């Protein structure tokens, strides 16, 4: 009986000792590590969302931008413009590059169409994508381009429009909405059709 009376004390001590040895489930260190992990995941997620930001859609608002024109290719004598400056006009925004072979297929068409519509409230704006200025100028001279042209400084405009390559053409209506997006060299029929449609509205 005496043994029985002493054992309960011994088991309580053992349980206490075991409780002292096993670490708690959530320690400050683990909590800090978890917070750090979540912060890192949030950072990665934010970067992913930003990098996959969707390009503008037809019927949606055209992303705002600022252009600084090449000398000799200004618009109404201004050296720089924003999209808001073109409000009320149809803007044919064309991304191109001197190294782009397919851009050459549409270069004459764009210039001819600009000359045909320039007095009807239609503005053509060329944006040179990752192109060096001497080459861009050579291209513009080669195709006798007269409509406003600008480099895509820091790639901001092409990023805002999420272009997949060159050439790409965005037709923006008088209200600043993207009316039509064309990937690749645009055809005469498509270009005239789209501009005429907007002019009739």
């Amino acid at each position, binding site marked *: 009986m*005496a043994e029985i009376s002493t054992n309960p004390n*011994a088991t309580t*001590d*053992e349980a206490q*000792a075991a409780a002292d*040895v096993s*670490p708690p489930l959530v320690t400050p*260190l683990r909590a800090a*590590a978890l917070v*750090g992990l979540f912060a*890192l995941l949030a*950072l990665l997620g934010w970067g992913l969302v930003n990098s996959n930001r969707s390009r503008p859609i037809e019927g949606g608002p055209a992303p705002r931008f600022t252009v600084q024109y090449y000398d000799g290719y200004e618009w109404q004598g201004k050296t720089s413009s924003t999209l808001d400056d073109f409000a009320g006009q149809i803007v044919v925004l064309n991304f191109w*590059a*001197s*190294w782009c072979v397919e851009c050459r297929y549409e270069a004459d068409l764009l210039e001819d169409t600009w000359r045909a519509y320039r007095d009807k409230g239609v503005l053509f704006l060329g944006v040179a994508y*990752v*192109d*060096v200025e*001497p*080459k861009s100028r050579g291209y513009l001279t080669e195709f006798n381009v007269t409509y406003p042209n600008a*480099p895509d*400084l*820091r*790639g*901001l405009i092409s*990023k805002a429009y999420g272009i997949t390559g060159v050439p790409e053409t965005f037709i923006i209506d008088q209200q600043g909405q993207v009316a039509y997006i064309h990937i690749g060299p645009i055809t005469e029929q498509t270009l005239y059709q789209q501009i005429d449609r907007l002019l009739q509205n």
Partner: protein
Amino acid sequence: MKVWVYLGLGLLLALLLPGAVLAQRSVGDVTADEVNAVARDLFCPTCESTPLDVCPTQTCQDWRDLIRQQLAEGKSKPEILDYFAANFGPQVLSEPPRQGFNLTVWVVPVVLLLLGGGIFSFSLYRLKQAGTALPAPAATQSPPPKTNTTLDPYREQIERELGVGE
């Protein structure tokens, strides 16, 4: 006195002229190695993860020509890299500029390394502590010498009769 002034001016010109000549070279004098020394710190803007010095596209060729031209004009490597970053965005640089949000690229790995090292060291320390602490309870919890108090009177009697302890 005048002679010394002319001599001084002549010496100054002799020192400055080679620098001026070096600053403005013809494009043809710039070697491919000099161009590539700058180009390898830039990335092709139209292809995936291809350094400019080994990129075969027309875009990269145009960029290398521009680097050659700027080197001929006497621009330094940092000036040329700044030009490309300003015109085409910092993403064309092989090494992001250490400012703004880009700092995370430099800071996060170091912080993670330190954090990981800290956690590892702390875990090792805890393991070591647990290793030295565990045998101790085992030693203290060794069964106590068995004593039976009911036998004590008999044991005392035997010991008394045998004369043990007297």
